[in-house]
């Protein structure tokens, strides 16, 4: 059986573009403020949005990204940070994108146009509404023709995606694999969310983890069996089961378990599909910063399942020189 290692992480969040602002937010050294999304009737909904990038990234000029929606930008930004490349080419890299809402802004705009008069609905918008558009754009940016799947799910989808990526790597289907989760905010999503969770904010952004079989500083050691919500959602029960399956760890990062102080949603809002990625990156960062030898990410999704993942520090002596160097 192949072992799987984390070779890089990337984040876009309401804290900003990159892992560092994300870390600062989780450490309480930075705050985010909610912004308002206007509905057509003028009423506003409160959401946590990604701030504008500090400067225009070079990849934003890629022909594929000129008309794409924010979810594609979030996808590409997190993936490139995980790859550690400014001018990317990563042929042979597999992509596994996990989304909950996907390209909701263009979907809403296109459907509104179609309802007004389908004869004049914009053909520019429709192709961007498909769930796999961001993953397709990322493949074009990276120059990869390798396996590229988009999965729809809830906040737990990212962890299930890690398992699929580990399988691809183990069977040699891809040489490296980016697991990405990404979302964009829209008033339709915010309104739908409000029906279930008043007083909490949805957030937008993305997370990415680069996995390889070559040793790296952090190892993915386990992903639990999923606990589907087919008989109802029970976060407390799921938390106990996931913890029991993964065993004790030095650091815990969670999402979706009410009352847990380490819950990333308490600082970042509910990033929907992106939330699972943020939770995993939070666990990995605790190891990378030397705060823990082992860490777990536990996620109770909104409407599919609960899952947990376990990571551990790889002793420097087990690493090739290049991988042991700080990122």
């Amino acid at each position, binding site marked *: 059986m192949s072992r799987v290692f984390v070779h890089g992480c990337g984040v876009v969040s309401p804290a900003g573009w990159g892992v560092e602002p994300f870390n600062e937010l989780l450490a309480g050294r930075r705050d985010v403020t909610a912004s308002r999304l206007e509905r057509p009737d003028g009423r506003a909904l409160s959401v946590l949005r990604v701030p504008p990038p500090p400067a225009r990234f070079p990849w934003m000029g890629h022909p594929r990204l000129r008309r794409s929606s924010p979810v594609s930008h979030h996808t590409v930004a997190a993936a490139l940070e995980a790859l550690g490349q400014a001018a990317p080419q990563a042929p042979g890299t597999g992509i596994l994108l996990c989304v909950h809402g996907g390209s909701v802004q263009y979907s809403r705009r296109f459907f509104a146009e*179609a309802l007004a008069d389908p004869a004049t609905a914009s053909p520019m918008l429709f192709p961007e509404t498909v769930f796999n558009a961001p993953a397709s754009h990322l493949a074009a940016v990276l120059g990869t023709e390798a396996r590229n*799947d988009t*999965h729809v*799910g809830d906040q737990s989808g990212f962890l299930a995606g890690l398992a699929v990526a580990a*399988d691809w790597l183990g069977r040699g289907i891809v040489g490296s694999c980016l697991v990405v989760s990404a979302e964009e905010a829209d008033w339709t999503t915010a309104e739908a969310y409000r029906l279930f969770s008043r007083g909490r904010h949805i957030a937008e952004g993305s997370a990415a983890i680069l996995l390889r079989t070559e040793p790296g500083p952090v190892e993915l050691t386990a992903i639990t069996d999923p606990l589907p919500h087919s008989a109802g959602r029970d976060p407390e029960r799921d938390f106990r089961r996931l913890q029991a399956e993964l065993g004790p760890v030095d650091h815990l990062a969670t999402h979706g378990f009410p009352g847990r102080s380490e819950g990333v949603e308490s600082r970042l809002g509910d990033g929907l599909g992106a939330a699972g990625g943020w939770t995993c990156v939070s666990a990995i960062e605790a190891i990378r910063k030397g705060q823990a030898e082992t860490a777990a990410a536990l996620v109770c999704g909104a409407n*599919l399942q609960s899952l947990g993942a376990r990571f551990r520090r790889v002793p420097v002596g087990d690493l090739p020189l290049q991988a042991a160097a700080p990122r």
Partner: protein
Amino acid sequence: MLFPFQRRSEVPVRVAVTGVGIVTALGCGRAVNAEGFRTGRTAFREVRGFDVTRQRARSAAEVDLPERLPSTALGSRQEGRMDRAGRMLLIAAEEAWSQAAWPEGLEGLPLVLGTTSGGMALGEEFFRRSSRNPAMLRGQASRVVHYQPQRQALDLMAAFGFRGPTTLIANACASGSNAVGEAFEWIRSGHVERVLTGGYDALSQLVFAGFDSLQALSTTTCRPFDAARDGLALGEGAAVLALESFGSAQARGAAILAEVAGYGAATDRHHLTQPHPAGDAALATMAAACQQAGIGPADVGYLNAHGTGTPLNDSAEAAAITRWAGESAAQVPVSSTKGCVGHLLGAAGAVEAALCTMALHGGWLPPGRGVASPDPACRFPILAGPQDLRVEYMLSNSFGFGGANASLVLRRSP
């Protein structure tokens, strides 16, 4: 544990299809679909589900759903909340489940489904009401819950009493093939003994308007690979396949309907909606699927093409098939069944895998429709009429927006 994997076999495991369920505009169930695909019956009509009076195209292959759903563990309230897509999926799943007759105790059974839009019609209704009358919240929460593919997956689990890992693949029009392919790979690599897999999609106003806005819908008749083709026709439906290891199927004396023997997937990064004109990624997926099956083009007795009927798709696929088949091109019969039931989007690959299973089992080839004069790019025979023939291998192609390309090889049961 989902990871590390518990590998039950160190050598590749052969994968059997022991159950098939299918819903298309030809009807609900294997018998009516086998008859329809075998004879090349078409199933298009003017769309009744939503207003198309302001669209260029007006017709599609709509499914007439039965009033009652098959009996499962779902209660009437649960059934009443299901959307059209979920109902088609449930009907197909029940048929596959009954045929497979899997033993009790499959609590951890994995589910792998492909879809492009889940219960989109409910999402559309949520948007309409939210835009026009935001104060009226009645039913809105239920629409949000039931339009998402997660709900349809959970309904399937509740209907048949399993709760294993769920994967919902949304690779546009290749989703169904990707789902069957991923399920096949899990069994082949020895991770699991069985997987329930398939694809489903219902017609929706957003998607219909979308393809129409791209002028991709035929305003005449969908004629894949015809020189004068002018676009695709949309359809809806679902197919579910019960896959299991040969060892498991043989040990319990189950009828093996066909074997899934190969799967290839690749990304065409040429354009978001247009294939590479030479069909590079399509060529890669066909070659990969056949390599995994251990066969060459000369071994393929029938190729079920993606064949949407759009000028760009069919010419690129024709180029890819010709390059892949090489000297064998003239010996590989090709058809696209989208001329009969339309393009089923996320369901297409699963439905076509299901029909290949039925055709391999029944000893017939499914003809295409509407080819008066084949595109000169087609250097292979286009199957235009019914033909009874027992072949050993069939190859099925599915390509989608975003450059999602997938091919499956199915083999006649031993």
